[in-house]
């Protein structure tokens, strides 16, 4: 467990989470959530739990992004003000 790498990953996770909930572009929010899941998978792998890590990478970054983009294609892209 490398403490500076851990802190950097957690810092980026917080920044990406705040960006994902404040943006008005829903496609950008989906891509930011995908990046959030990928960094979360990096954190899991870095904490020596590879099993949880690649599950997070497969579900969070892969399948959920495809589902959300398929759902977004049926609604509007921009959030109403």
């Amino acid at each position, binding site marked *: 467990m490398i403490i500076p790498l851990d802190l950097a990953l957690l810092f980026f996770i917080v920044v990406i989470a705040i960006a994902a909930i404040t943006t008005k572009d829903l496609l950008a929010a989906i891509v930011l959530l995908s990046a959030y899941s990928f960094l979360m998978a990096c954190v899991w792998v870095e904490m020596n739990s590879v*099993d949880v890590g*690649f*599950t997070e990478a*497969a*579900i969070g970054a*892969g*399948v959920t992004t*495809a*589902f959300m983009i*398929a*759902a977004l*294609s*049926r609604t509007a892209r921009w959030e109403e003000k």
Partner: protein
Amino acid sequence: MSTEKRIQERDVVIQTIAKLMIPFIQLYGLYVMVGTEGAGGGFQGGTVLAASFILLVVAFGVDKGRMKMPEGWNAVFKSLGLYLYAGVGGLLCIIFSLGKAEYLNYCAIPLAKIIGGPATRGFWVGNIVEVGIGVTVMAAFVSIFYDLVRKEEKKEAKE
């Protein structure tokens, strides 16, 4: 047809990379399900298998995806996984434990007396149960994705 036109416009780089990647993704999913000694990994392996089919649909379009993985197979795979799980877990153990009904006790089958309990649980029976879980998870994810894509197609056909 607008769908044929959209298929012809697809990128050759994405299609070639998807063709190269999909067999390895599926092999990795199978390895996660049955390759390791311990229990667990059915849900993860099924998710990786579902991700390979979703990559196929994303790269080649819904029509070719339906050719490779028809929607009717989803119900078959879901039922097959449930039958594998419940059959191995319940039926075999109820039969082989002579009416004591030890549900999900995999050491109750006679194979455990020959090669030992943990080996039976880990290698033989656990792997079949994990394949059941993985097949069900794969079919569920693929059917959710097909449902989302199909409604989009209907909306486009109305327009």
